[in-house]
């Protein structure tokens, strides 16, 4: 998963997600909360981000397909508490491994960017 992408810009409309980070966030959510359906994941994302993330809920679906194709998550049809049929996604073992790797890389990356941005120039 590449980390290159358009620069994000904080604005009154909230923040845009860095490309590739959505997958990580979804994995993290599933790792923390266990099996979830798409609506639950979307709601969870909104809660955590305090609506700062301007996320079209539909964009979640391509990410879910992608992760399923990688074999990092597995989907299974089930019933919600109100007895609606929904597809529940759970993180797989390779998914957990990938999450750890991606998290480590992310930390490394943000650390580096942080350092570069806070560096004092002795001009």
């Amino acid at each position, binding site marked *: 998963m590449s980390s290159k992408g358009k620069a994000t810009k904080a604005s009154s409309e909230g923040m845009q997600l860095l490309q590739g980070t959505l997958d990580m966030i979804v994995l993290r959510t599933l790792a923390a909360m266990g099996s979830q359906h798409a*609506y639950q994941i979307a709601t969870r994302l909104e809660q955590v981000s305090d609506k700062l993330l301007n996320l*079209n809920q539909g964009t979640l679906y391509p990410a879910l397909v992608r992760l399923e194709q990688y074999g990092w998550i597995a989907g299974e049809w089930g019933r919600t508490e109100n007895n609606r049929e929904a*597809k529940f996604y759970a993180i797989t073992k390779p998914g957990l491994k990938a999450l750890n790797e991606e998290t480590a890389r992310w930390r490394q990356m943000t650390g580096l960017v942080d350092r570069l941005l806070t560096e004092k120039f002795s001009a």
Partner: protein
Amino acid sequence: MSAMRRLVQKLKGLSEAKNSRVDAEMERELATHVALLEEELIRKGAEPAEARRQARLRLGGVEQVRMMHREARGLPLIESLIADVRFGWRQLMKRKVTTLAAVLSLGLAMGACMAAFLLIDAFYLRPLPVSDPSHLYVAQFEGLNWAGAPGTWNAASYPMFEKMRDAAKDLANVTALGYTSKNELTYGGYQQMEQAYQQPVSGEMFGLFGLKPALGRLIGPEDNLAPKQSPAAVLSYEYWQRRFEGDTQVVGKHFRKGDDDFEIVGVAPKGFTGTELGLMADIFTPSMMEPWVADKNDRDQTLFVRPKSGVTLATVQSVLDATYQREEQERAKMLDSLPENLRATFPNAHLRLQTVGSGVSGLKEGSAPSLETLSILIVLVLMIACANVANLMSAQSAARSREMAVRVSLGSGRSRLVRMVLVESTMLGVAAAALGLLFAWWAAPFILTKMTPADFPVRVALPMDWIVAGFAVALMMAVTLIFGMFPAARASHVYPAQALKGGEAPQAHQRAMHGLIAVQIAFCFIVLFIAGLFATSLARKTGLPLGFATEHVLVMETTAKQPIQMGRWDALLEAVRGTPGVQNAAMADRTLMGWSSQSTAVTVDGVTRKEVNAFLLKLSPGWIETMGIPLLAGRDIRDSDRDDTAALVNQAFVKTYFGGKDPVGRMFTPLDSKTPVTVVGVVGDAMYGWPSRTVVPQVYQPMPAANDSGSLKPLQMATLVVKTQMNDPMAMAETLRKTIMQTDASLRVVKVQSQRQVVDGKFVQERLHAATGEFFAAVALLLAAVGLYGVLHYSVILREREIGVRIALGATAGNIARTVTARVLAMVLLGTVAGSAAGLGLVRFITSMLYQVKGADPSMMMMPAIVLMGAALLAALPVVARAMRINPVVMLRSE
């Protein structure tokens, strides 16, 4: 790993059934999502209707999500490409006529192009299959020829070769190759003769060419030390496969040719069939097995030279040239008939070493200008096809501008539109290339066979190798790109508002299309014009009066093991005359219009005319009658004339040496024999060895001459001419062969031809030009007709409404026909005029290849014009018929 897995998943996603199942699943998922959102919003106090709206808004457009979902799970590029191909196929099928016309034109033109490339590749590009061909040279002689005219030739005598080889032995390797000729031989008894192409080679050849045997051994210097010493034969790989199906037991087999018993010692490597282009040798034999190895005057060897490393070409050349000058000066002393003006500085020529390239051949030299002509014709034909396709495609894209506009309005990306059109034209290109390849596969050998008479086929390997395939692919891509880009660019420049309002004026396209038609017709005219010139040239040349009969006559070259007495030859002639179906038979020492000649200067009344030579033929009584040559004065030679002192002469001889006065009873002395000869009769002029309008002076003397003691010399070889009652005299060849062998067991027929075949062999070049001309004329005419039809067809479709209205208003059939065809026919006329002007300009480039034909001849202009008009009318006919069948009621209602 996971990326791989994803790709596999994606590929799985390509299957349609699975796709629709996954689509349905996604629908369910999205439905749940919307429902849950709705519920939540209602819980928070929203109105149900508003909740639904909000829910959908939050999710984003369902259609977009669906699209993103599909793209994430599938391979969008391939999927849409497949869709484009399917769509393109439907589009092409919808317009069958234009599609067919486009594929046909492109296919024909590409096929012609590929066929020409095959030939050009075979003649020019493919290097000789020898090691290091770039350091192989052929000896060429440049200077004045026997007639005192400048020329180049590459023939040397075998003794000359031996001298050169020995003189240059420290500097270079030299080898001599004889002519490849079709010979009769047998692997069994003389009852089962068959023919094969045999090439005598010196022992150095295989080594110098760096060739390794595919089987057994090759001919080496040790096979070529003394005359008749080593009857070894090496088969070409192709012949081995063809004749012996690759049997490895072939080594050790024997065959008989004439009186020689050859043993097959090996097989040459694959691909090597000699160095003469247009001739493929089946069997290689040592030069020393041939009778001419000691003859300094028999010049039929081609010398190949490979300088040793560190030796410059110039050094080798000067050594070889010095030998050449010395030997030729020596030879000149023996040449009594050598014209005096040439003698002092004989040989008046110098040896030059030329790079070999793809081979050496008289045929190649002969066909070189015609291959240039071929290229011109090819370019013209390709241009005609391109004009066709450009017309058809722009017609299509114009017709589709509305469809494109709708697509753009519905949100189709312009790049997607371009891709769609490109896919379509690629499909056209692929179809056309496939057709073209088939066509080329048929056409290339076809042109080759048309080039040459059946008896003397030019044989060239025409492999469809990777160079040819590469050429085909490149050609296809180029054509597809050129003609795909054009409508694609147009498609991407659609302005929906304008196009949907009714589009640009169709007249704008029509003008361009009509212009292209005119250009196309002009090109077609040029091709037809050139073809006509060649065809007329061939007809004029083959139509030259030969002065002797060619039909019904069989020519049989016959040899005996040892020279036999004349009585046995006479008995043979009697037996042949007695064979049912034979009208007459006689013999001579060579064939009229054959490949050999003999000439001498002649002294009359003490004056020797050295600037002109008389050509000689020795014959038996009855020969002139058998050949259909009229006896104009005096008498035929008789059996009692069998010495050197009586001769028949032709009219040209009388004119040249006797000032046209009756020569019967007068004397002349040939410089060669120095024996005075009495003219006993005068015969009509007959062509001796080559087609020309003026017949050379000829002397016919009895064969054989008596020797000094007055008795007749025994004779080893003779050419029988047999006049049969058959239209195809070759039908009697086997019967006569048996008759001859039964009459005298020591006689062998080494070559059988009809006199017609002998004569045809002299028109190879003209035939080549005429055949290629005809071929391209046919292709060009077909293309032009297809193009005309396509454009007319399109313009009728475009104007269906107008024509419907006209018919409704009472237009007559004539009116409609005029409406539909007037402008196009005007363009045909314009093209014809332009074409004749261009043709007149071009004709000077090919005058050298024409015989007795003037380019400016109005009759030469009329023929293509009439043919083109005919083709145009033929192409217009179905279109006019269609236009007239338009039902105004149906037409106007459909709008």
